[in-house]
């Protein structure tokens, strides 16, 4: 298992190098560069600009520029955000807890809803309840998240006043107090519900279909012949088999957890990685953009690795020795 993980981690390196080249090239192709943001507006002397360009290495050949960037990147120097004028790492670390909080809350909501609905549907397929669940799930899947988010804000924040309409915490509360944490929870709940409840469809339907398929397997008949109650057969014997294919989704979720929900975060003006990402695109904050793209690529690869390792844990047949 350890050997396998190490081998997989090493295997990620060429992939990451390729991704970094793509990210770097895209940033180069895009119009403008970091210098335009850095320059003192009172000093637009072309000679000074040319001198700065030379000093910052913009005139070096591309491979050299790439090499300089990647060496710094490897050492944890992601560059300086041209918008915030602070190191990119600091900007990301500042936003990360918010995104993690939102991501985990949304994922918990998705899991709870999807497992409840999927297990019910799988046990009672082709009934009214099953059809209703499928209907709800597909409607939710079909509604774009920005529409759902806008409506949620309108009804629950403005009409009913149950939740705040944006932000991640009230300004007036003192950091670290219980009120502070309650306020954060209060702020995260609405975007988390929108994000979580909208994405139950794949989990629910996958779980349902797998439970139906497994309930016809021979081992279910064996368990029945042993006098095992039907509820235990569904909740232990079948469920344990049916979570195996769901592990694939978990790999994607892992990247989404930290990558943030770009649209939802923006609509809720929730200061997280998703919002930062969109911001960095519109304000040409290339160092931040590149660092985030690299981070997300790495997390996607790591998520896949995590899913593959988890397969071994949930399915003894593909366990690595």
């Amino acid at each position: 298992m350890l050997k396998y993980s190490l081998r997989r981690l090493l295997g990620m390196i060429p992939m990451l190098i390729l991704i970094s080249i793509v990210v770097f090239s895209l940033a180069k192709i895009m119009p403008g560069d970091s210098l335009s943001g850095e320059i003192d507006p009172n000093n637009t002397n072309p000679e000074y600009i040319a001198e700065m360009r030379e000093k910052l290495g913009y005139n070096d050949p591309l491979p050299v520029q790439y090499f300089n960037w990647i060496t710094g990147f490897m050492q944890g120097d992601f560059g300086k955000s041209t918008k915030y004028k602070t190191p990119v790492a600091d900007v990301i670390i500042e936003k990360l807890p918010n995104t993690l909080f939102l991501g985990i809350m949304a994922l918990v909501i998705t899991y709870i809803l999807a497992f409840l609905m999927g297990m019910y549907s799988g046990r009672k397929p082709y009934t009214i309840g099953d059809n209703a669940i499928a209907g709800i799930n597909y409607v939710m899947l079909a509604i774009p998240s920005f529409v759902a988010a806008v409506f949620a804000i309108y009804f629950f924040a403005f009409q009913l006043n149950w939740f705040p309409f944006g932000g991640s915490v009230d300004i007036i509360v003192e950091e670290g107090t219980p009120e502070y944490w309650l306020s954060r929870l209060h702020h995260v709940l609405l975007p988390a519900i929108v994000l979580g409840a909208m994405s139950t469809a794949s989990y629910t339907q996958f779980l349902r279909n797998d439970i139906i398929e497994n309930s016809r397997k021979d081992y279910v008949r064996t368990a029945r012949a042993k006098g095992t109650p039907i509820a235990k057969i569904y909740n232990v014997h079948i469920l344990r088999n049916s979570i195996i294919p769901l592990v694939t989704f978990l790999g994607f979720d892992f990247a989404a957890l930290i990558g943030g929900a770009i649209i939802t975060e923006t609509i809720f003006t929730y200061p997280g990685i998703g919002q930062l990402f969109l911001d960095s695109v519109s304000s040409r904050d290339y160092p931040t953009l590149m660092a985030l793209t690299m981070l997300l690529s790495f997390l996607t690869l790591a998520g896949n690795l995590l899913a593959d390792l988890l397969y071994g844990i949930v399915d003894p047949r593909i366990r690595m020795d």
Partner: protein
Amino acid sequence: MSANYASTHKTPLLQVKNLQTGFKIDGDYFNAVEGVSFNVQRKQIVGVVGESGCGKSVMSLSIMQLLPEGIGKIRGGEIEFEGEAISKLSDKKMNKIRGKDISMIFQEPMTSLNPVFTIGYQIQEVILNHEKISKKEARNQSISLLKSVGIPRADKIVDEYPHQLSGGMRQRVMIAMAIACQPKLLIADEPTTALDVTVQAQILELLKSIQEANDMSIILITHDLGVVAEICDEVLVMYAGKIVERATVEELFNNPKHPYTDLLMKAIPKMDEDVEKLATIDGLVPSITKMPQVGCRFSNRCPRAMPECMTITPQLGEVAAGHETACLLYDASWPTEEKRQREREGASAV
């Protein structure tokens, strides 16, 4: 007390009375088992033989109430176990019997075990379902059960998963599970069909020795007459959902009465004969939806069919001591009404 003792030991262990099991096809029920009656005595091994699709498995699943939910249903008749009617018990009450008093092993050892649980877990489950003991005791029992069914390294295998074992080993595990609570009746539904010939013999020997050691009764469902000859006491021959012949093993092999049984016997390849082509029975079992409602169900394939076979339904009748058959070639199989009529007309059967 003594009267009670006597009565429980006089009644057969299992009595199946006029069992009718149907399957729902396009909204209508069609009987896959049509009026089957038989008894299983204590310590007896009863073989049930017949072609694929003749209702053997459905009959055994009916006894356990393991018919596919919403599709298969017991539509008539009674099943009594130790004198108690069990065919209408609730699932909860049936769970107390399944695995404890009656247990079952299946044809496909490769898929009959749950792939994600250890062998030990799956054996312990049946013990913990029926006995109030600790997990540790159950584990120890599982290990000794595995040893008793001839599994080497039982203390290692107990923590292994089904995919790590061969088919024969898995069937041994199934047997260990089935005998864990020392049931009075074991239903073995084609336990050796999916196994190698050499392994088949070992599994049969194992079943026989367990049956003798535990004073257990066995219903052995098979389409292999060789298996029947090897270990059974009594044999039921089924065709198209009905019992067509019932006899002791010796009687059946020496003196088969029903043309179907006779043809089955002839289909067994013989070691001392050199033939190009093995004997077969032409045609197929009629499909469940096209089953003739009157007459003998074998008549369309029977080489000795008479005109009456199409119109008169034969009944199981005794043709020799302890030997019953349902075929109009024998007087005993004629229904009373038709028999009287025939006697009036002065005709006589064989």
